[in-house]
C-alpha cells in the first residue's frame, strides 16, 4: 500500500457531485507540467470528443452516488474516462442456465468504470452498502482469502493485460442493458486497434478479453435521451480503451509516468542471480564446474564499443563462449548467425562439468548455403566437451513456431473465456476434441519431450546444442526446462528466478514483442506484422513447469500460485523484468525515458507477506533421502539446498552449507573445482499428452462455474500446511517444555478432551466463550469452541457444525477465485504463519531424526 493515493491523485478530491463534469479536465491541467517532456503522451489526454458528464439525475435514485466510486490512483496515474456501468461475472453459474431456479441468479454489480493511463478499474457502488447484510459476528476480512495486489484491486486490470475488446451493439429499444450483457455473438464485434471504426448505434456492452484469460463484461445503462442528451457511456469507454490500451511506443506505457522511486530492499539479500554482471556468469560457471568456457563482457570488447562497428552485433552485455575461441574470432563468426547468436554457453552438467548446454541461432538466411561457419562454431563447442562429443538438437524442425504457439494460445483462451452459459455448454459437449484442436497440450508435450532428450544427453555426458532460428524463443523454453529437470537448485524459488534471469532476461527473449506490450504503428498491414510477433512463449514455458510440478509435487519450492502470479506479472508495466526485448532497450529506457527499474522478483512490492506465503509449497522437501518417483540415482545427498529467502524475510541467510557460492566472493582458484550440482536428483517427466493436464488455476480461475468449493489442490495444500503447523507447535512446546499450547489435533489424536486451562486463564475463557476472539501478538485470532465429545450425533452430521476445526470452503482456485465468508480466515492465517515458520527454517526440525 506504499503507493497511496495521496499526492498523485489530487484531482480525485476535487470531484464533487456537481462538478463532476470538470473532473477530468481538472485532472489534466494539474498533471500537465509533469508530462511536458513526453508530449506524445499528453497528446492523448486531450479532452475526448464524447461528453464526459455523468448526468446523475438521469440515474435511479439509489445509483446517484456513483461518482463516489472512484478508483485509487497511483503516483502519475490519471483518469481519462469514467462511466457508470454494470459488471457481470464472466458467465452466470450453470444453474441459472439449466434450472428454473432463478433465485440463485446473481445480479450484476453497479458501479463506476474508469479508464486511467494504467488500468481499467471498476469500483462497485454497493461496496459501502454491502457491509450490512447478515454478516453478524464475522466481520472477517475476506481480503485474507484471495490474492491482493498492491497496485490493482480485484476488479481492476492493467491496460497492458487487455488483448481484445468486443463491442456489443444495442439491441433495440426494448432490450435492457442487462440483456445486452448476455448477448451472443451476432452483435459482438471486435474492436480493432487504431482503426477509426464507425460504431453504429450505441454500445450496450463491452467484453474485454485479457491476456491472463480473464473475461470482463460490462453493460451500460441506456439513458433516456431527453434527459441526458446523447451520452453513450459504452462508446466513451471503448474509445478511451482503444486509445490507451494499445500504445504504439513503449514510452507511452504507464511505467514512465509512474515515477515512484525504487529502493533495492530485500532483493539485495535474497539469492536471485540477476546475470547482469560478469560475476554472475562466472559464479554459474564455477557452480557447474565448467572450466572450458569464458565470460565475455561487451563493455570490455573494443570492437563492440566502436560506434561504427557495434551496430553489426546484437549480443547481450555478458555471455559465455568457448575458452578456445578469442572474442574477435567469435564475433567474426557470429555475423553469420541470426541476431549474432553463435553458441552461448548456459549450463554444464556432470561431476566435472563434463557436458554443456549451449544455445545457438541458425545461420542468416543469406548464409545458409554455406554451413562452414556453423561447422567451425560447433567444432569450437565440441572442443569444450570433456569427451569431445556433441549433439545438435534442431528445435525449428521439432517444435512449433512462435506463430503456432500464438494460435494455440488463442484457441485455448477461447475455450476458457466463453461469454455465455450456452457457449460454455456447447464447448463442454465436445471439450476434449476442442482442446486437442488447440494443440496447446501437444506443444507442451513436445517441449517436455525435447527438454527430456536434452537432459538425457547431458546426463550421458554429451554436450547438447540447442539450435533455433534466432535462439531467443523456444531455445529459452527447452534450455530452462532441461536445467529444471537436471538441477534441484533451479527448483527452489531463488533458483527458478535466477534461471529466468539467465535464460530469458540476460539472453534476451523479446518479451516486449512476444507479450504485445507495444503495437507498432507501421504502415499498411500492421495487424499482421503485430500478430506474427506476438506469442506467449513464456506461458508455454510456465505451463511446462506446471506439468512438472504436477508430476513431482514435492520437488519444487514454489506453488502453482507462484507460476500463475508470474504470468499475471508479465502485464504489470511497473516492473521492468518482462517489459523489454533486450538489454540495450532497457538501458535506453532507464537513461532516456527516466524509467524506474523495478525487478518483479521483489515480490514485496506487489504482495503482502500473507500472499507471498502462498508461493511456497508445503510439500517441498529440502532434501530427499532416496530416489523416489522416476528420478534415479543412489542414496541421499546430504548437502541439501538452502531455502530461498524470496518468500518472507524473517530469517536471515544462514551460514549453512550452500550449493550456490556466495554472491559476493569469487575465488578464481575455484575454477578448477568440481561441479557442486548434485548428480542424483534429476527428474524424468512423462511427456505424452496422456500424462498432461490443463492448468486449471491459471486458465479457469475467472470462471466461477468451475470453482470447486472446498475442493481441489488448495485443500490439499492447506491440509499439509496444517500438518506442518501442528508439527511446529508441538516442537515449540517440546522446546519450551510447556504443554499448555498444544495443537487441537493432539487432543483428538489421544482421544482426550482439550483441558480447561489454568485457573487464571479460565476467566479469560469465560469471556472468550461469548466473544471468541483473542489477540495474540497483535494478531486477531479466533479461538474455536471446545470439541464436542459429549453428544456426538449418531449420524455424524453435526460434528463440524459444532465448531470442530472446519477449514472448508476454500475456492479451488485459491488464492484466486471468489472469496468466501466465515470463520476460516483466522484459522487460516494462523496455520499459514506457523507452517511457514517450518518451511522457511534452514535447519528444519523435519530433518532431525532423533526426536523420540
Amino acid at each position, binding site marked *: 500500500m506504499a503507493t497511496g493515493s495521496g499526492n498523485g491523485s489530487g484531482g480525485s478530491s476535487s470531484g464533487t457531485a456537481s462538478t463532476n463534469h470538470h473532473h477530468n479536465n481538472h485532472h489534466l491541467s494539474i498533471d500537465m507540467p509533469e508530462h511536458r517532456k513526453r508530449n506524445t503522451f499528453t497528446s492523448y489526454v486531450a479532452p475526448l470528443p464524447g461528453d464526459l458528464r455523468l448526468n446523475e439525475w438521469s440515474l435511479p435514485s439509489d445509483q446517484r452516488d456513483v461518482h463516489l466510486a472512484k478508483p485509487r490512483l497511483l503516483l502519475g496515474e490519471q483518469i481519462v474516462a469514467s462511466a457508470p456501468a454494470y459488471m457481470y461475472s464472466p458467465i452466470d453459474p450453470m444453474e441459472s442456465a439449466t434450472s428454473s431456479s432463478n433465485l440463485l441468479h446473481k445480479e450484476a454489480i453497479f458501479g463506476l468504470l474508469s479508464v486511467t493511463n494504467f488500468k481499467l478499474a471498476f469500483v462497485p457502488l454497493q461496496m459501502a452498502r454491502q457491509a450490512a447484510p447478515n454478516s453478524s459476528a464475522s466481520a472477517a476480512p475476506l481480503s485474507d482469502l484471495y490474492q491482493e495486489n498492491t497496485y490493482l484491486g480485484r476488479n481492476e486490470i492493467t491496460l497492458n493485460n487487455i488483448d481484445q475488446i468486443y463491442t456489443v451493439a444495442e439491441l433495440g429499444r426494448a432490450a435492457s442493458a442487462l440483456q445486452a450483457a448476455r448477448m451472443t455473438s451476432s452483435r459482438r464485434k471486435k474492436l480493432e486497434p487504431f482503426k477509426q471504426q464507425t460504431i453504429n448505434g450505441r454500445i450496450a456492452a463491452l467484453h474485454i478479453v485479457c491476456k491472463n484469460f480473464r473475461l470482463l463484461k460490462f453493460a451500460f445503462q441506456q439513458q433516456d435521451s431527453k434527459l441526458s442528451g446523447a451520452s453513450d457511456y459504452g462508446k466513451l469507454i471503448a474509445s478511451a480503451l482503444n486509445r490507451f490500451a494499445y500504445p504504439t511506443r513503449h514510452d507511452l506505457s504507464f511505467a514512465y509516468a509512474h515515477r515512484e522511486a525504487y529502493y533495492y530492499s530485500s532483493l539485495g539479500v535474497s539469492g536471485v542471480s540477476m546475470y547482469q554482471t560478469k560475476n554472475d556468469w562466472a559464479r554459474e560457471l564455477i557452480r557447474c564446474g565448467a572450466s572450458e568456457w569464458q565470460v565475455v563482457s561487451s563493455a570490455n570488447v573494443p570492437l563492440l564499443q566502436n560506434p561504427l562497428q557495434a551496430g553489426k552485433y546484437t549480443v547481450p552485455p555478458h555471455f559465455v563462449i568457448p575458452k578456445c575461441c578469442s572474442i574477435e574470432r567469435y564475433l567474426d563468426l557470429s555475423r553469420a548467425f541470426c541476431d549474432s547468436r553463435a553458441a552461448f554457453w548456459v549450463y554444464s552438467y556432470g561431476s566435472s562439468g563434463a557436458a554443456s548446454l549451449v544455445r545457438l541461432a541458425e545461420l542468416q538466411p543469406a548464409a545458409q548455403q554455406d554451413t562452414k561457419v556453423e561447422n567451425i562454431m560447433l567444432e569450437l563447442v565440441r572442443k569444450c566437451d570433456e569427451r569431445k562429443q556433441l549433439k545438435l538438437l534442431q528445435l525449428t524442425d521439432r517444435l512449433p513456431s512462435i506463430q503456432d504457439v500464438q494460435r494455440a494460445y488463442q484457441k485455448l483462451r477461447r475455450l476458457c473465456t466463453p461469454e455465455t452459459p450456452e457457449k460454455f455448454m456447447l464447448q463442454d459437449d465436445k471439450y476434449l*476434441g476442442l482442446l486437442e484442436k488447440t494443440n496447446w497440450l501437444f506443444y507442451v508435450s513436445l517441449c517436455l519431450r525435447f527438454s527430456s532428450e536434452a537432459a538425457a544427453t547431458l546426463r550421458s555426458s554429451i554436450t547438447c546444442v540447442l539450435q533455433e532460428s534466432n535462439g531467443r524463443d523456444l531455445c529459452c523454453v527447452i534450455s530452462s526446462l532441461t536445467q529444471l529437470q537436471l538441477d534441484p537448485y533451479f527448483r527452489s524459488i531463488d533458483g527458478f528466478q535466477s534461471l529466468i534471469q539467465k535464460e530469458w532476461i540476460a539472453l534476451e527473449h523479446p518479451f516486449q514483442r512476444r507479450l504485445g506490450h507495444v503495437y507498432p504503428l507501421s504502415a499498411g498491414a500492421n495487424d499482421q506484422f503485430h500478430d506474427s510477433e506476438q506469442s506467449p512463449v513464456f506461458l508455454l514455458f510456465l505451463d511446462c513447469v506446471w506439468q512438472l510440478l504436477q508430476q513431482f509435487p514435492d520437488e519444487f519450492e514454489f506453488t502453482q500460485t507462484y507460476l500463475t502470479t508470474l504470468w499475471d506479472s508479465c502485464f504489470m508495466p511497473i516492473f521492468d523484468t518482462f517489459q523489454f526485448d533486450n538489454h540495450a532497450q532497457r538501458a535506453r529506457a532507464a537513461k532516456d525515458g527516466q524509467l524506474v527499474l523495478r525487478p518483479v522478483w521483489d515480490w514485496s512490492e506487489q504482495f503482502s507477506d500473507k500472499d507471498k506465503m502462498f508461493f511456497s509449497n508445503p510439500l517441498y522437501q529440502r532434501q530427499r533421502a532416496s530416489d523416489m518417483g522416476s528420478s534415479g540415482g543412489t542414496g541421499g545427498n546430504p548437502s541439501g539446498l538452502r531455502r530461498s529467502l524470496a518468500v518472507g524475510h524473517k530469517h536471515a541467510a544462514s551460514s549453512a552449507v550452500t550449493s550456490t557460492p556466495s554472491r559476493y566472493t569469487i575465488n578464481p582458484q575455484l575454477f578448477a573445482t568440481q561441479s557442486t550440482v548434485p548428480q542424483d536428483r534429476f527428474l524424468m517427466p512423462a511427456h505424452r499428452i496422456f500424462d498432461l493436464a490443463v492448468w*486449471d488455476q491459471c486458465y479457469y480461475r475467472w470462471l466461477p462455474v468451475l470453482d*470447486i*468449493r472446498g475442493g481441489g489442490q488448495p485443500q490439499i495444500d492447506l491440509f499439509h500446511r496444517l*500438518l506442518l503447523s501442528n508439527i511446529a507447535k508441538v516442537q515449540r512446546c517440546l522446546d519450551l517444555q510447556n504443554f499448555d499450547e498444544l495443537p487441537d489435533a493432539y487432543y483428538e*489424536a489421544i*482421544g482426550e478432551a482439550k*483441558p480447561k486451562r489454568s485457573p487464571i486463564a479460565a476467566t479469560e475463557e469465560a469471556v472468550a466463550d461469548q466473544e471468541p476472539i483473542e489477540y495474540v501478538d497483535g494478531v486477531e485470532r479466533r479461538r474455536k469452541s471446545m470439541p464436542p465429545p459429549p453428544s456426538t450425533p449418531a449420524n455424524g452430521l453435526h460434528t463440524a457444525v459444532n465448531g470442530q476445526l472446519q477449514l472448508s470452503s476454500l475456492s479451488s482456485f485459491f488464492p484466486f477465485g471468489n472469496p468466501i465468508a466465515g470463520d476460516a480466515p483466522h484459522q487460516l492465517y494462523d496455520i499459514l504463519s506457523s507452517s511457514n515458520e517450518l518451511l522457511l527454517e534452514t535447519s528444519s526440525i523435519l530433518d532431525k531424526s532423533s526426536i523420540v
Partner: protein
Amino acid sequence: MDPSLSLADKLASKTASSNSLDSSSKSSSGGGIENGVLRDTPFAYLDGEEDQDQKNDVTYVCPYRGPVFGALTITNYRLYFRSLPLRDQELPVVVDVPLGVIARVEKIGGATSRGENSYGIEIFCKDMRNLRFAHKQQNHSRRTVFEKLQANAFPLSYSGRLFAFAHAAARATGAAGATAAGGWDGWAVYEPLAELRRLGVPNDMWRATKLNESYGICDSYPAVWAVPKAASDDFLRRVAQFRSRCRLPVLSWMNPRTQATITRCSQPLVGVSGKRNADDETYLSYIMEANAQSDKLTIMDARPSANAIANKAKGGGYESEDAYKNVEINFLDIHNIHVMRESLRKVKEACYPTTDDSKWQTAIDSTLWLKHIRCVLAGAVRIVDKVETMSTSVVVHCSDGWDRTAQLTALSMLLLDPHYRTVRGFEVLIEKEWLSFGHKFQQRIGHGDNKHSDADRSPVFLQFIDSVWQVSQQFSNAFEFNEHFLITIVDHLYSCRFGTFLCNTEAERVAEDLKHKTTSLWTHINSSLDQYLNPLFPSFTHGAELVLRPIASVRAVRLWKGLYCRWNPGLCALQHGCQRTRELLSKQDQLFKHVNELRLKSNNRSNNMQTTTRLASPMH
C-alpha cells in the same frame, strides 16, 4: 483406561496405514507383472480353490512385450500364466485373472493355421482387457484348456455353481472359519433399521414397515421400507399397483435437520391414455407434507424427456404436473443401459491395448463416457441443491428405478451425508441403494453366464463407482477411502469370489442364503482396512465439507486412467502417491507420542506429590 496405551494403539494403526499403498494387492497390480513369488507354488491358492488344468507349453501373446512362453494353470477360480524367463534377471510375465472376469472365450485359428501364434485361445474380459494364448497344434493342449475355461468361467451355463460358494464352504471348514478374518462379518455391515434410525426414522412423519417381509408386494424391493406415516398398509398396496413392477416411492435418505427427503421409485403406469391414480397422487402429497420446510415436491426423472414420453407407449410414463399438485418434474437426460454399454465399449477400444497419443483426447471425447458421467454428476448435484439449498423433498425415478435411479440416489446421498464417505458408510450405501433396492447385478454383470452379448448387461454400477471417483478427485480429503478401495470393489464386482454382488434382488439372496453360504466382500476389505485408507482424510478435521457440490463439467471430469488404462504398463498413470503426506503424518504422530509420554511423566510426578489435583484428566 490408560491414555498412553490408547495413544499407542492409534499411532500404531496410523503408521501402519502409512505404508499400505506400497503393498498393492494382487487384484490391482498394474500390468499383471509380479515379482517375488515362490517358484514351486506360483500363487497363493484361496480356500476352496482347486487345479483344473495345467499346460506347460503355452505362449501368452502379450500386446506390450510380445509373445512369451510359459505355463498356464486353470483353477476353479482363476487363470494363471507365468512365463519362463530366458535370462535369470528377467522378470517373468504373470497373468492372474479371476475367471469371473471373463466375458467370452474364443478359439482362434484352426488345424491348418500357419504362422506363429496363430492357433490358440482369445479371452475377452469384463475389466477392459483381452488375453491371447497360443498353443501348438500338435500338442492338442487347446481343447482341454478351452473346455475347462468354459466350464469354470461360466458355471451357470454348465450347471455348476459360482466359486463364492466353494470358497466360503472351504473357509467354514478351515481352521477357525470366518472368525479368523478378524471376527468381523461383512454381512452385518448394513442393518436396515439401524440405518433408518441413524437418519431419524421413525419420527412424526415417517415410519419403518416390514410390509414386504416376504417380498409379496414388490419382489425387487427390500423387506424393510420407510414410508410416510400417513400411508396405511393397504394404501401402500394400492399405490404399488400404479408403479412399474410395484416399485412404489420409499425413503432413501432424510436430512435430519430439515426433514427434506430423497425417495425413490419406478415410473408411474400412465400409458398413452394418461391414466391417473388418486392414491399415487395422494401418496406423493404425503411425501411432500412430511417435509414442513417446503410446499413443493420435485420429481427427478433420470431419463431424457423424449425417452420418458416414449415410455408411455409401453404403459409407463411420468407424472404430469397437472395431475399432481405442487409437483415439479425435471428430466435429467441420462441415457439408458444400452447407451452406456456402447460408450464403455468405445472406452475400451481407446485404452486397450494401445492408445494413439496424438489422437488421445479426441478418442476419449468420442466415447461420450465423460459426457455421460457429467450427466450423472449434474443430476446428483441438482438433487443436492433441491434437498439442501431449497429444503425440498425429491422423488427420483427412471423407468424401473433400479439403474439410473440407484446411481442418482446413491450419489446424491454421498454428496449430502459425510457418513457415506467413510469406508463403513460407503459399504452401507452400496448395500442399501444398490443391493437391497434391487439393482440387477446378476443380469447387468452376467456372473458365470456365457451369454456375452446379452442386452441386459451394462456398466451401470461401474459408472456409479466412476462418478464417486470423480467426486473424490475433486474433493481429495472428503473421503476416508482411497482409489484402491474403489478399484478393489470393481475387481470383485466381477470375480465371483464373494457373495456380495451375486443375484438380482434381496429376495433372491435370501432364497440362496448367501449370508451363510458365501463370504461378504466387506469382510475381506474390513479385515485389512489400512490399505484402503486415504491419508488426506484427517480424523481431526472430519473431512472438510459437509455437503459436496462437485463441478459437473467435462472440463472438470477426467478419464479414470488408474482403472481403464491399468493393463498397459506404458500408460500407467503417474502415481506420485502421498509419501510426503505420510512422512508428515508420522512425524506429527511421533511428536504427539513424545509429548504424551512427557505429560504422563509430569502428571505422575505431580500425582505423587499431591494426589488430589490432576491436570489434564484423561478419559475414564
